[in-house]
């Protein structure tokens, strides 16, 4: 796969895996309103995944579409960041994951909406509006839970502690990123870190939460080195396509 296709694939995989995780909440959330909003975010992510994975297939030019990419690859070929594959845990852990990721996605898509390559720019422009809402929603919950009861605060602290080690990977750059920037499709993610830090810190302050202690970054997702969680997620997600090869649905 060429580097630009890989770039689209990574964006698609992030959205796909997060959408899959969030949809696990459907019907089981702490309140009906929360159920609806988590489903909304999941739907937006699945929509973004569809666009980016179809684009990745098109750029690859080997006849694979978004479905082939989503349902017919194994763990080592998935390129999502480790953060999105983390289990939902309790609601605080889900919110912590969403909080870190949505602020990253919001900054990323704001910039990507202005890149030269109109295919990336068009998807990003639509997605930017969606993820801005996700970031607001996640921030509101971080504040509610952080500045709620003793129990909710303890859970929010634990949720953030779980996901914090995966934050650095969001901003890590490699050859595919450099090539995508060069080609007018990509964004310099490392340059987003400062704005991300200040947005995240402002919310944590309002939530009366301390920023988690620095932790050695856990990385590898972009090159197919994942957590043990991803294989189980894929075996469930890909079940029908694997059990009935060649069938259309």
């Amino acid at each position, binding site marked *: 796969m060429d580097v630009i296709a890989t770039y689209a694939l990574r964006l698609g995989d992030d959205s*796909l895996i997060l*959408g*899959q995780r969030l*949809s*696990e909440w*459907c*019907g*089981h*959330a*702490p*309140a*009906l*309103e*929360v*159920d*609806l909003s988590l*489903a*909304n975010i*999941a*739907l937006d992510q*699945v*929509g973004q*995944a*569809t666009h980016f*994975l179809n684009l990745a297939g098109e750029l690859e030019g080997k006849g694979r579409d*978004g*479905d082939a990419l*989503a*349902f017919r690859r194994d763990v080592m070929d998935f390129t999502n960041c480790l953060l999105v594959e983390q289990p939902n845990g*309790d*609601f605080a852990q889900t919110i912590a994951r969403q909080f870190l990721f949505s602020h990253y996605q919001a900054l990323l898509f704001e910039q990507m909406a202005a890149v030269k390559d109109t295919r990336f720019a068009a998807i990003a422009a639509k997605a930017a509006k969606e993820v801005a809402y996700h970031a607001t929603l996640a921030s509101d919950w971080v*504040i*509610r*839970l952080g*500045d*709620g*009861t003793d*129990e*909710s605060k303890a*859970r929010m602290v634990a949720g953030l502690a779980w996901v914090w080690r995966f934050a650095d990977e969001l901003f890590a750059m490699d050859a595919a990123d450099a090539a995508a920037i060069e080609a007018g499709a990509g964004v310099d993610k490392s340059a987003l870190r400062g704005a991300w830090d200040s947005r995240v810190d402002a919310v944590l302050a309002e939530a009366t939460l301390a920023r988690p202690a620095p932790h050695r970054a856990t990385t590898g997702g972009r090159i197919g080195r994942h957590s043990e969680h991803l294989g189980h997620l894929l075996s*469930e*997600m890909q*079940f*029908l*396509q694997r059990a*009935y090869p*060649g*069938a*259309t*649905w």
Partner: protein
Amino acid sequence: MYTTDMSGNKKAEVVAEDPEELAAFEARVANDEFIEPKDWMPEAYRKTLVRQMSQHAHSEIVGMLPEGNWISRAPNLRRKAILLAKVQDEGGHGLYLYAAAETLGTSRDEMTEALLSGKAKYSTIFNYPTLTWADIGAIGWLVDGAAIMNQVPLQRTSYGPYARAMVRICKEESFHQRQGYEIMMHLAVGTPEQKRMAQDALNRWWWPSLMMFGPPDEKSPNTAQSMRWRIKRDTNDELRQKFVDITVPQAEAIGLTVPDDKLKWNEERGAYDFGEVDWEEFAAVVRGEGPVAKERLQARQKAWDDGAWVREAARVHAEKRANAKVAAE
């Protein structure tokens, strides 16, 4: 989705009402006027409505579970998005219906507690398991199809908030029914395994779908009262017949066989004759003895219990904010 009429074994209790007010109320209803939350209404009308609307809302919420069971395994991205949106719609329906029922003076928490304690019921159909992807097609086609039969007339039900909620809900349900049938169409022309899956789903969901219309008319003593009050607009048997007449040709069109050897077109009646529903099974499912009834209630209980700390945190946080605002003023 919608609620099953499960009132067959209970008579409405009689409460003494002011005869003049009652007569004026009955006249308004007979005249097809909407009754609004602040209007006078007989206690039995209020009770019947709370029971029916909360059952309906609970059915939407419990109904998220059997379909939600397949979101993570939907066969492609398009089907995943559609199913997710559909299950989310059911949650939205639950929300409008709880809100409409709250206008009658019962809180959502009270209704939820009644569901979890087993005091309040939900549609019997959701006590059956979704075993294969074809069940998602069958639910949309048959269960939402049956729901539409019941709900279209409810758009003209006498209680204003309920009728208005039903207008919104009906628009979405007809989309749900079409997407379900479309899944079945694809399976029916697919591989032999897919066709087998589709037929198996129809075999399992057909009779429970017919049960959704509730007990036969002669065993539904509250029907007459509910129809006089325009809470209900057609009898259970009328709706069941209508459903059979519409659905059988749809099954034939895609080469599936309805699992009823008594099913036969009756030229004279201009309708299908069909076999007897297993009313003993229906009664057992109403009693809470359906195949996955325990799993469904356990899932709702778990969501409620696991979410308690979140709801409490939101409440405490809102209070802190309100106090801070008062202090600042």
